[in-house]
C-alpha cells in the first residue's frame, strides 16, 4: 500500500519536474544539453582509464579536465544568462557569452599543451 503511494509520489515528482523543466527557455536547455554531454564524455574517458590503466596519465588528465572545465564554464554561462537570476541583471548576455568563448579558448590551449 505505502509502496504504491511512494511510487505514485515519485511519478508525480518526476512529472512536475519535467513540466517545470519544459518551461525553461530554449537557450538554457541548449546549454544544459551541452553540459550533459561534456560530462558524459568525461565519464567514458574515466571508464577507459579504469580498463586500460593510466599510462599516459597526462593525456587522461587533460582529456577529463577539458570536459569538466568546459562543463564548468557552461554552468557559469547559464547562471549569467538566466534572466531570472537577479544577481546578473545588468550583465548583457553577449558579454557572458564572450567570456565563455574566451575562457574556453584559454582552457583548450592549456589542454592541448598538456595532452602531449
Amino acid at each position, binding site marked *: 500500500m505505502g509502496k504504491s503511494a511512494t511510487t505514485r509520489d515519485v511519478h508525480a515528482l518526476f512529472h512536475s519536474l519535467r513540466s517545470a523543466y519544459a518551461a525553461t527557455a530554449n537557450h538554457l536547455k541548449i546549454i544544459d*544539453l551541452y553540459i550533459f*554531454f561534456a560530462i558524459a*564524455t568525461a565519464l*567514458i574517458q574515466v571508464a577507459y582509464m579504469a580498463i586500460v590503466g593510466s599510462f599516459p596519465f597526462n593525456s587522461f588528465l587533460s582529456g577529463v579536465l577539458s570536459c569538466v572545465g568546459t562543463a564548468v564554464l557552461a554552468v557559469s554561462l547559464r547562471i549569467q544568462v538566466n534572466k531570472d537570476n537577479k544577481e546578473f541583471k545588468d550583465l*548583457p548576455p*553577449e558579454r557572458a557569452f564572450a567570456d565563455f*568563448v574566451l575562457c574556453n579558448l584559454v582552457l583548450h*590551449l592549456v589542454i592541448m599543451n598538456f*595532452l602531449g
Partner: protein
Amino acid sequence: MARDFGFLILAVLVLAATCESAVVSPVSESHRSAALELFSPADGSYGSLEETYEALKTFKVLGIEKKHDIRTSSCASVADALKSTSSALKDFVDALRVNSILKCELNSEAVRGIQSKLKDSLNGANSLIDFYYSIGGLVLLKEQISEVDVHLGDADRIFRSIKALGQSDGRWRLSSNNPESSNNAAGIALEALAGVISLATPQIDNSLITTLKNDILKLFDGIERYDDGTCYFDEKLVGARGHQSPLSSSASVVRGIAAIAAATTETLNLPGEKILGLAKFFLGVGVPGSAHDLYHQIDALSCLENIRESTPLILSLPATVISVTKKDQLKVRASTVLGSPAPTLSVRLMQIFVSGSKDASVIDQKLKFDAASGMHVLETLPKNIDVGSYIFSFEVIFHNPEHKKTYVSGGRTRVLVHITGVIKTDNAEIVILDGDRGSVETQKKLKLPGDNAVALSANHLQKLRLSFDLSTPFGNVFKPHQAFLKLRHESGVDHIFLVGNSGKKFEIILDFLGLVEKFFYLSGRYDIQLTVGDADMENSFLQPLGFVELDLPDAPEKATRPPPQAVDPYSRYGPKAEISHIFRAPEKRPAKELSLAFLGLVLVPFFGFLAGLAQLGPNLKNFPKSTVPSTFAILFHLGIAAVLALYALFWLKLDLFTTLKALGLLGMFLMFVGHKTLSHLASTSSKLKSV
C-alpha cells in the same frame, strides 16, 4: 740479457771514472777527423782572422796537411788587415799570427807602419790587453821579419807595469780600475811577460824573473783538483767578459807558462804532478764538440808537450777488459800527450788491488816491450789473479836517469781492469725431497747453461732443492753478483730467492711448509727460472728450468691476498667490455581494437548532443541580416574555427611558442570581430527591449 751485461759493464766503467783509476788516451785519429770536420771552410775561408789562425794552428799541431786551399784568400785578408789604418791592435796580431803559419809575402812599408803603431801603443798601454797585443805583435814581427828592429829598451819598466796588475794569489787583473782577477788574465799576463823577456835588450834583471817564478808557483796553488789527480784552472767569478770555461782558462794559463819556459833559460821548478794533472784534464775532455774548444785543447797539449823541463807522459791501455778464456794479454802504451813515442823506458806492474776490498798483492812484474806495436805487454797474469775486477798499479822506470828530470810520469798509475772468463757450471740438479724423512722423491739432472724442461710436482709437506757448482777457468771458487731462483705462478705472482754458496757448491732448499703463507696459498703450476750473472762472467745466463706443480692447502679466511698483477698497459687502449643496457620495460599498451572502440564511444556524446539540439530546435533568427554585421558574424565564427584548427595543429606538430605567436594574432582579430558582432547583437536586443 746481453744488454744487461753491457749495461753492467758501462756502470762499472762509469764508477771507475769517478774513482782513482781513470784512464786517458793520447791524441788520436778521432781528434784529427774531428778537426777536419769542425774546421771546414765556408766560402773559401774559415771566417775571421782569429778563426783562421785557430784552424791553421790546430791542423799544424795535429800534423794534418792542409786539405782546404785557403791560402790565397787568407793571405789577402792578412795583407788587408795590415795595410788598413782603422784596424785594432787585435786585428794586427791575428793577421801576424796567421802569417806566421802561412808565411805570405808582406809589404815592407805596411810592416814598418805596423811596427811603429805597435811601439806607440806599447808605450801608451795601461791595460793588460793592450800590453798583450802590442808585445805579442812585436814578438811575431821579430820572428817573421828579421831585419825589423823591435828591441825594447825600457823592458824593465814594461815588466813592472804588467806585474803591477798581478795579485798575491797568483792571478792577474785586466786593468788597474777593474778589481776582478782571473786565471785567464794570468795566462795572458804570463804570455806578455814572456814576450818582454824575449825582446828585452839588455837582458831583464834576474830578480824580476825570480819573482815571476814565485808568481807562477802561487798560481799553481790555486789549481782545482779531482781525486784521480786531474787538475784544471777554473774561474771563481763570472767576469764582465762572460764565463770562461775551465778549458779556455786552463789553456790560457798553460800557454803563458809554456811561453815563460821557452823565453827564459832558468828552470821554473814547475810542480810535475800538477803538469801531469793538467795533461790528464785536457786529454780527459775527449774530443770536444766545438772548434774553439778543440783549438784550446790541442794548443794546450802542444804547449805541454814542448815544455822543456816537465813533459808529461801518459800511460794508456787500449783494452781494460781481459778475457782469460780467450787468452787476451794486457797491453800498456807509454806516450806523450800528442801521441808521440816516449823515450826508452820500461813499465812495471807493481801492485794489484782487488776492486771493492782492501786486499792488495805486491807483484813487481816487468812488462815486455814489443817494438813492433810500441806496446808494453803483460805476458802472463800473476798467479793469484782469477776472474774478477782489479786495480792494477803501474810504474814507469826510465832507462836514462836524465829523463827523470825532464819527463813527468806521475809515480804510480792505477787502472781498473776487468778479468773476465767463462765460468764452468757442473753437477746441476733439482730434487724434490720428502719433508720429514729427507728422502729423495724426484731427482732430475740439469744442463746449465742449456735447455731444460723438468716437470715436477710437490705438495706443501715436501722440499725442493736446487744445487750446482761454479768454478773459474782456473778451477777456483767463483761467487757471482747474481744467483737467483724465481718461481712464478701461472697467475703472474712471482717469488725470488737467493742461492747461497759454500765454496764452489751453490745450493738452495725451499721448504714449502714454511713458504705456504708467502706463496699466498696459491696452488698450481709454478715456472722455475734460474739466473746466474756477474760483470766478469762471460756466460751469464737467465734460464727457465721447467715447472713444478705445487699442491698447497686452501687459504684460511684471514690469509693475505696475492698482490694484484700489473695491468698490461696496452690493454687500456683496447676495446672495453660490451655493456648491456637495461631498459625500463615499456608500459603495457592496450589492444588496438579496444582503443578504437573507445574512440568511437567518446564521439557518441557529440552526436548525441547534435541529436538533442535537433530536437530542441534552435534557430538562427538573430543572425544579422545586413551586410557588414553579417560579415563580422561570419568572421567571428571563422575566427573561432581557426583557433580550434590552430590548436589541432599545435597538438600535431607545432610548438608552444609558434602557437602562442599565431594565437596572439588570431586572438586580436577574434577580439575585434567578436566585439563588433556581440555589440551589434547587444544593441539590437536592447533596441527590441526598449521598443
